[in-house]
């Protein structure tokens, strides 16, 4: 019996039909999806923190309005994705609990500090750029609620990258000091951005299964290469130097070769030893704990209104 369910599921996957919440699915598919979608949701939520750092110090009203809108979008993206994860049978409280206890991970990039205003440019340009590269193929992922959430996310995300690029462009066309600031931010965010695509394919044992399930559509290394190739061209427009001496066009491969990534650093940050891991989690937990009375009050208010309506 379970065999035929499995066969039916495999047939749907192979014929590019979407799987919906009430359809039968293998336990591992469900588990992998919950992990992947919630990790993505957590990343959106924690991702608000490094940028929130600069909202009050944005250099103009326009930049401030833009940054606020971007951070608000990220909250929205987190909510779309949490909802998608909940259709798989996990509750929102459980998901928050996993984040707050450190059981669930979020993208390690958000454990780096945002030191100058130029970091708002580099984060938008590189971090959101890398995220888009990861996310666009997921608009066609096999799980319906996830794919639909990703369509929404991708539509909104491209403004994020453009506003970042615009900040970088303004700075790099500005004074000597401003240009230096842009280059410094580029230097600091470049390598962590490359790490966002995850470990090399050879060390990513679940890739094959995830590609088979259409939870992943391109491998980590394929996406990383694509990102390097487009960024080299964009850096030329900015007039900034690539923070990697080994970057070179490889005629034979039709791609740029690039230097070795420090995976030791990556593993360290994932393990919790990045520059801001502790601070991010503490800020997040504090916001949750201090919001408890609001959640309780809203619920009490709703109950009271309901009973008043009944009495009337």
């Amino acid at each position, binding site marked *: 019996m379970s065999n035929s369910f499995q066969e039916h599921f495999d047939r749907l996957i192979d014929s590019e039909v979407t799987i*919906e919440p*009430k*359809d*039968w699915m293998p336990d591992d598919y469900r588990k992998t999806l919950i992990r992947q979608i919630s990790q993505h949701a957590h990343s959106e939520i924690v991702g608000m923190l490094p940028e929130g750092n600069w909202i009050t110090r944005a250099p103009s009203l326009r930049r401030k309005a833009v940054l606020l*809108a971007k951070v*608000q*979008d990220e909250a*929205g993206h987190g*909510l*779309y994705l949490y*909802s998608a994860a*909940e259709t798989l049978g996990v*509750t*929102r*409280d*459980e998901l928050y*609990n996993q984040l707050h206890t450190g059981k669930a991970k979020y993208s390690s990039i958000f454990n780096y500090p945002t030191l100058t205003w130029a970091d708002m440019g580099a984060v938008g340009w590189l971090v959101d750029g890398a995220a888009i590269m990861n996310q666009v193929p997921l608009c066609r992922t096999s799980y319906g609620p996830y794919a*639909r*959430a990703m369509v*929404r996310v991708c539509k*909104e995300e491209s403004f994020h990258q453009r506003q970042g690029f615009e900040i970088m462009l303004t700075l790099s066309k500005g004074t000597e000091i401003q240009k230096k600031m842009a280059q410094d931010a580029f230097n600091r965010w470049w390598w962590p951005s490359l790490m966002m695509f995850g470990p090399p394919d050879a060390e990513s044992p679940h890739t094959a299964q995830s590609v088979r399930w259409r939870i992943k559509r391109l491998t980590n290394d394929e996406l990383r290469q694509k990102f390097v190739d487009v960024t080299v061209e964009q850096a030329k427009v900015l007039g900034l130097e690539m923070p990697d001496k080994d970057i070179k066009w490889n005629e034979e491969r039709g791609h740029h070769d690039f230097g070795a990534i420090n995976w030791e650093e990556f593993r360290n940050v994932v393990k919790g030893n990045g520059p801001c891991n502790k601070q991010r989690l503490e800020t997040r937990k504090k916001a949750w704990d201090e919001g408890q009375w609001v*959640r*309780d009050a*809203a*619920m009490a*208010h*709703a109950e009271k*209104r*309901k009973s008043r309506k009944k009495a009337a």
Partner: protein
Amino acid sequence: MTQEIKKTNKTEWPLWEVFIRSKAGLDHKHAGSLHAADAQMAVENARDVYTRRMEGVSIWVVESRHIHASDPDQSESMYEPANDKIYRHPTFYNLPEEVKYM
């Protein structure tokens, strides 16, 4: 641990499904879901979460537990009967060339 989760679950705001009419004259379409303490808050949250870029002119919310759905495992018996009734489609009928608009 389970005790703790149970306790927090009790206070979790109910889940709502959000439907949005993107412009006058069109149907409301399912946009997604969210948590809110009551209907009024669900509408307000839906505005913030699902219409930040003028995606809607009207919002419906309904608590998710009130939605009844068909069973995907019953799809075959549910929809199969319509399969062999192609005469319900206008293309089933052959009309002479002279009849231009019908």
